[in-house]
């Protein structure tokens, strides 16, 4: 074997293997993975080639070499190559019609490789090099194209809702026709003309596949369009006005995608959609007035999301990315508005529905950036927002609504639903007596105000978390303004912002620690009093009897979670200290008396 022959053999093997490698490297398939592609290739090279060789050898005796090449062989070979496609396409896990084309392509190049090696190069001698190049470029393409046509038509039949057998029959007929055409042309022509014609037929096959794949993709797109209620003849603007994709429709879309690409890929696609949605939402945010700090934070978040999006895209195959761009074009604002809304409805933690709500309701423009900065700083003073970054609070402040209260007017009454938190604003110019703090007074009994929230104070923060009825009443003691933050709006805000949720958990953990400490203290003091250790309990308060006697304990009627602090435990301790003091005195005054009836002596 000389060098020229060797080179032609190498070309005949390397080029088809390279084509196979391309399919694998570009991830040009979604179902079954690279293994199936390999099996299809092997089937073409061995499983289809050997019986085809036997059949052809038998036929040559019956119909002669000419007829065999022109008609017999194309029919036999196409049917044999198609056998493996039927097997793989009808497996239950086959999800995507275009994969049929990929399988066919692999089977075709496998068959062509064997045919080139064992039929055409075998004994071709020095003429082998030119033959190899011509063959590899044309016959391989023809074989691959013909089987790909069969594959895509079988795939479409498999995925179609109604079974129509016309297209797959036409598909196999077309593949045979292509093969017959090629073989006849190759027989009649020679030299450069032959080469050009052969390549032309090969490329023609490629075009036919492209058209068929395109058709399959439009079928898919139409089915999504029907689900999402998208009438393709309508402009984006009109569509935006009439179209309302709900969570249910969106789930149906994800259901379809899951069927095609499986669970893992679909959850990636869901994340991709959510990321894309959030980028759009934040970019819209940038078009409204906001402080530099808030804008910078939004830009930072966008940059972070873009990195995430690239990351997800890399995890998805190139082919699925193309598919998604084709099905859900990124430039279609109307479609994406609907997708965003639907995503938010099905899972509010996925997308920034708060920001969409701000834009749609046109609330976003009610304050200028300086006001937002000032409000954010006031909110930051409240315990509940202590761990929330200022830019988040600025964003949140956009949702505050202004309420004006006249002197003496009630903000809420005990027992009212706790559905909002209020930020108090008192005008500096309001006239008042020096010892009166202006603001919102909290009380249970009309004449016993136990707390006043002045300018910048935050009233009823726990309402943002649980909305329980108010445990006390609140009233304005001068003409003032409160900025209300509704629980509903707040929930919407934090849902898609884990950092803020984390800050809330931190706030709650602190409160929980205060209650736990206070409960432990109550338990400990109770057990000491039970044992008669009155002096110990008094001593543990760390204050004199004089101060103890002034102790009233945490105001039971008003003890809401907002009031919990490190002092709660101490004040529980003092309350028990006072109890110990009182009981000790009582026992000294009435030692070992007969059973007592009725009310015991009151506190001294």
């Amino acid at each position, binding site marked *: 074997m000389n060098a020229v022959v060797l080179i032609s053999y190498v070309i005949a093997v390397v080029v088809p293997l390279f084509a196979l490698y391309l399919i694998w490297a570009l991830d040009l398939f979604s179902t079954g993975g690279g293994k199936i592609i390999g099996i299809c290739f092997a089937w073409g090279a061995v499983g289809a080639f050997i019986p085809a060789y036997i059949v052809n050898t038998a036929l040559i005796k019956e119909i002669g070499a000419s007829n065999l090449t022109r008609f017999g062989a194309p029919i036999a070979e196409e049917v044999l190559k198609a056998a493996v496609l039927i097997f793989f396409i009808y497996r239950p896990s086959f999800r995507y019609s275009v994969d049929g084309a990929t399988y066919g392509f692999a089977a075709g190049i496998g068959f062509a490789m064997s045919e080139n090696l064992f039929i055409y190069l075998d004994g071709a001698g020095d003429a082998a090099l030119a033959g190899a190049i011509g063959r590899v470029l044309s016959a391989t393409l023809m074989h691959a194209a013909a089987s790909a046509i069969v594959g895509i038509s079988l795939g479409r039949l498999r995925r179609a809702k109604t079974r129509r057998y016309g297209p797959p029959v036409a598909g196999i007929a077309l593949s045979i026709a292509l093969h017959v055409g090629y073989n006849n042309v190759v027989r009649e022509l020679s030299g450069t003309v032959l080469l050009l014609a052969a390549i032309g037929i090969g490329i023609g096959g490629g075009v036919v596949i492209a058209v068929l794949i395109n058709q399959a993709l439009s079928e898919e797109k139409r089915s999504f369009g029907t689900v999402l209620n998208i009438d393709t003849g309508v402009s984006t603007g009109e569509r935006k006005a009439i179209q309302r994709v709900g969570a249910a429709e969106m789930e149906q879309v994800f259901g379809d995608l899951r069927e095609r690409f499986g669970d893992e890929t679909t959850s990636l696609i869901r994340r991709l959609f959510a990321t894309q949605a959030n980028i759009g939402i934040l970019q819209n945010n940038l078009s409204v007035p906001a402080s530099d700090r808030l804008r910078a934070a939004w830009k930072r978040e966008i940059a972070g999301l873009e990195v995430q999006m690239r990351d997800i895209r890399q995890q998805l195959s190139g082919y699925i990315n193309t598919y998604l761009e084709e099905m859900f074009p990124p430039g279609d604002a109307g479609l994406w508005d609907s997708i965003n809304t639907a995503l938010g409805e099905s899972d509010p933690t996925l997308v920034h529905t708060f920001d969409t709500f701000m834009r749609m309701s046109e609330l976003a423009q009610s304050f200028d950036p300086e006001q937002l900065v000032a409000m954010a700083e006031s909110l930051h003073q409240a315990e509940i927002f202590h761990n929330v970054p200022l830019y988040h609070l600025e964003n949140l402040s956009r949702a505050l609504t202004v309420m004006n209260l006249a002197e003496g007017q009630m903000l809420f009454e005990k027992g009212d639903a706790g559905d909002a938190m209020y930020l108090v604003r008192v005008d500096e110019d309001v006239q008042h007596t020096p010892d009166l703090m202006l603001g919102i007074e909290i009380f249970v009994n009309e004449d016993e105000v136990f707390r006043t929230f002045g300018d910048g104070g935050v009233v009823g923060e726990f309402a943002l978390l649980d909305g329980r009825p108010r445990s006390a009443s609140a009233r304005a003691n001068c003409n003032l303004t409160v900025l209300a933050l509704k629980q509903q709006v707040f929930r919407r805000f934090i849902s898609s912002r884990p950092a803020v949720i984390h800050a809330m958990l*931190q706030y709650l953990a602190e409160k929980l620690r205060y209650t736990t400490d206070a*409960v432990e203290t*109550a338990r400990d003091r*109770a057990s000491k009093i039970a044992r008669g250790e009155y002096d110990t309990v008094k001593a543990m308060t760390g204050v004199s009897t004089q101060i103890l006697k002034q102790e009233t304990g945490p105001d039971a009627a008003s*003890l809401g979670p907002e009031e919990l602090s490190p002092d709660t435990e101490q004040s529980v301790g003092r309350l028990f200290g006072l109890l110990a003091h009182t009981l000790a005195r009582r026992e000294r005054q009435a030692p070992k*008396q007969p059973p*007592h009836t009725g009310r015991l002596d009151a506190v001294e």
Partner: protein
Amino acid sequence: VDIAEQLAQSQASIFKGVAREHLDALVGKMTRRVYNDGDVLCEVGDEGDSMFLIVAGRLRIYLPDESGHELTFRYYEPFQTVGEIALLDHKPRSASVAAAADLNNPGAPIEVMVLHRDAFGEFLNERPAVGLSMMLDLTARVRYTTTYLGKITEAVGRLLEGEYDRAIQEVGQDPAGIQEQHMIAEFIRMVQSVQRRQQGAPD
């Protein structure tokens, strides 16, 4: 052992209301550590940055006193969590924690799953819905305990006025939380012994 399942059943855990699939992911964020009897996991005053879930053996909670003696408060058993609140707030540890051998199996090492605060933060970022449900659970817990503290305060007020029976009524029925149950039980015991003492009955 199915750690996620045990975590779900662990009574005091802040993860009580969290769905199974999420707990599996959370367990994935934990690291397994093995200790010998007496090994110290953290000391009082250390920055609390992780939660311990006991898999085998016990954990002893104690405070060293001035003379260097250790005052043991309690032991935690397998599948109880220690220091869960440290995941959320940044307070120093209120007591020291040491590994303690299982009484029935004194030679066996003590096995603990450790959840670091950063890993927990990562978990919350990936699953904000879990953070939301934990938030609601914690809110309810804080509200509930606050209500009971209010009741105790009211009841002490009654005692100061000498109304013993009303004080007991005030603290009410069996509360749901263990913490509150203990507090109420102790309170009622206190009222009863004070009553006995004042009525001249032997203590």
